């Protein structure tokens, strides 16, 4: 298979799934910003409803910040400012009826289980309960050891117009791959 056929195949498969863009590798806050700008621009050019654009952008930001903060694969600067790069997967696309934002990253198995527990809880809630839960969490002091993920996850569930989908798959004794898909 030639290199062009090989990558055309990748390209074609993504397009068939309605992918607007997909990023795999180390993400930083700078990459979040640039991808976010491209996303907003694309949606503006297509004259997407402003409220839909905001929902997509909002979910995108929370998803990517979750990767940056919680991916188990990360690089730290040796010294100086706490520049972080964390490895993960970000895909934004559109199917026949909805936009979708998917994020995936490697997590420690224990953290992954904890995350799944929180998401199971969220998935059982109706929109009004999610809203009330969000308000409660907003008033609470930050959780021990957390850097704000739970409120970010609630924000994702709240902005999603269909129930969120998520999963965890074991990689080895210590690690698992986690992914979360939200629809707008």
């Amino acid at each position: 298979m030639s290199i062009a056929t090989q990558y055309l195949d990748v390209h074609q498969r993504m397009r068939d799934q309605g992918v607007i863009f997909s990023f795999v590798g180390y993400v930083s806050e700078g990459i979040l910003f640039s991808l976010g700008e491209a996303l907003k621009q694309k949606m503006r050019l297509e004259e997407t409803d402003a409220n839909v654009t905001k929902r997509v952008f909002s979910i995108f930001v929370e998803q990517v910040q979750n990767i940056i903060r919680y991916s188990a694969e990360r690089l730290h600067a040796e010294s100086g400012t706490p520049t972080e790069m964390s490895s993960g997967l970000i895909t934004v696309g559109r199917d026949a009826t909805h936009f979708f934002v998917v994020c995936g990253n490697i997590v420690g198995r224990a953290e992954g289980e904890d995350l799944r527990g929180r998401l199971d809880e969220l998935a059982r809630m109706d929109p009004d309960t999610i809203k009330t839960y969000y308000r409660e969490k907003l008033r609470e002091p930050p959780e021990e050891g957390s850097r704000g993920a739970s409120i970010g996850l609630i924000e994702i569930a709240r902005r999603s117009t269909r129930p969120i989908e998520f999963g965890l798959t074991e990689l080895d004794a210590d690690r698992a791959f986690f992914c979360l898909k939200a629809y707008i």
Partner: protein
Amino acid sequence: MDRLQLPQTERSPLVDFDFDRQRLRLEGESYPEDAAAFFGPLIAALDRYLERLRAEPPAAPLILDLRLAYFNSSSAKAFMNIFQRLEAAARDGVEVQVNWHYQTDDETMMEFGEDFREDFQAARFELCVFD
């Protein structure tokens, strides 16, 4: 107290805390790289300021104007922090008014405004629509 001003950036709001005139303003988008680093100093300054107002409540109200187009969940947490402090000061006798400006048709900002409004009793919280 010295006026605290920060220009608006692509990821952080304009900040104009004109303490002597009792007018505080936040405007723009808010999803800073490090929300704690951005909002920490603002909240610390606000604490010092409210301490002074409690000691000597001014005749005119303290007014906070927020005109935000988008903010992330870490920023929402910081806003809640600011609101809790203002509400506490209002309970101690400082007259406080918060104006939440949002654009017509902006469902998200309207909903956030309605949500935040429920946390105020002693302080006034107004929803202000603009075109």
